[in-house]
């Protein structure tokens, strides 16, 4: 079973994402900001990360840049999942090492399609 870390400051979004990803047979853990996500990754590197952009403490982009410098930090497939939906943001995320990008709002079809693109399914 693949392990996916869901990083979002909204507990509602985390719950929705958890339900969708559990249906796709992922084991889920959650973090509510980039800093907590980084700690979680140091303890146990996930196979996939669903990542919000705007969060307190450390935002998604900072987290991603730090993650990719960590030991084993290139392993997780990172899928951004954010309301930031302009080309500039998407480009920045991809340059920072994201693998795929979901523009909120999302549904099960989109998550499934994007995880498939990213080679996770």
């Amino acid at each position, binding site marked *: 079973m693949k392990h996916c870390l869901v990083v979002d400051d909204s507990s509602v979004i985390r719950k929705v994402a958890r339900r969708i990803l559990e249906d796709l047979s992922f084991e889920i853990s959650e973090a509510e900001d980039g800093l907590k996500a980084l700690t979680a990754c140091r303890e146990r590197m996930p196979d996939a990360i669903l990542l919000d952009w705007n969060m307190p403490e450390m935002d998604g982009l900072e987290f991603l840049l730090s993650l990719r410098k960590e030991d084993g930090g290139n392993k997780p497939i990172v899928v951004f999942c954010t309301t930031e*939906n*302009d*080309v500039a943001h*998407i*480009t920045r995320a*991809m340059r920072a090492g994201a693998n*795929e*990008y*979901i*523009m909120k709002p*999302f*549904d099960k*079809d*989109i998550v499934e*399609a*994007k995880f*498939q*693109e990213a080679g996770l399914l």
Partner: protein
Amino acid sequence: MIASQFEYLKQYLKAKSGLVLTNEKQYLVESRLLPVARRHGHAGLSELVQAMQKPGSTQVCSDVVEAMTTNESFFFRDGTPFQHFKEVMLPAMLKARADRRTIRIWCAAASTGQEPYSLAICLKEAAAKLAGFRVEIIGTDLSNEVLEKAKNGIYSQFEVQRGLPIQMLLKYFTQKGDLWQINPELRSMVQWRKLNLLENFSSLGSFDIVYCRNVLIYFDQPTKVDVLQRMAKQLPSDGYLVLGAAETVVGLTDAFRPVQDLRGLYQTAAAGAQGVVRPRFQVAG
């Protein structure tokens, strides 16, 4: 809506579009036609069907046919048909058409354009191999409304996120507010025609590759056979027909036969008879 009205609708749709409406599909009728009824100022389906039967109801009638026959479509829907395009059909055609240097592709149920544009993207990605070749993509559909959308190539955020990798979105689309428009370069690769598959389509000419996915399922047996047999006449013996994942020619017609090991691909029976060598396909892993 009373039973006789449903019966009328069934007959009408069958005659106009080939769509076979079974009694279990009543829910579909309601969800698709209530918006049409409201748009034309009718309270419900009963009034809508009455309006269809009045003289001068052409607009209502064509709106009904459009609403009932429009299908959801995604970019790179089902994956495999596009993989087969890149790995099997296109290489085969580059070889077979080396003299003529023209490849003609027909998307016979192009809907809102995602399928032809997905093929256009594949062609763009393979541009180096295609140098000197002219590739024509013709997208046809029954519905004016979807063809208009296809032509404009403007899609919602939802639509561009199903099946389209983000890199392709950045590369081939331009953002317009919350919508995304496919770039003019790709739009110009596809020609659009309104076409009903029940009618004669021989004037479209001969095609090397025909995509006809997820439309035959709506037809009854004799209509399927008729469409397939007429399509076979538009394909050379080394051409390909691509059907949807839930569709087959087996048990319907001898005009086509499945291509071995390549699900969803068919060639005309003439191909087998003439002993044409099919491209070898190695399954990875």
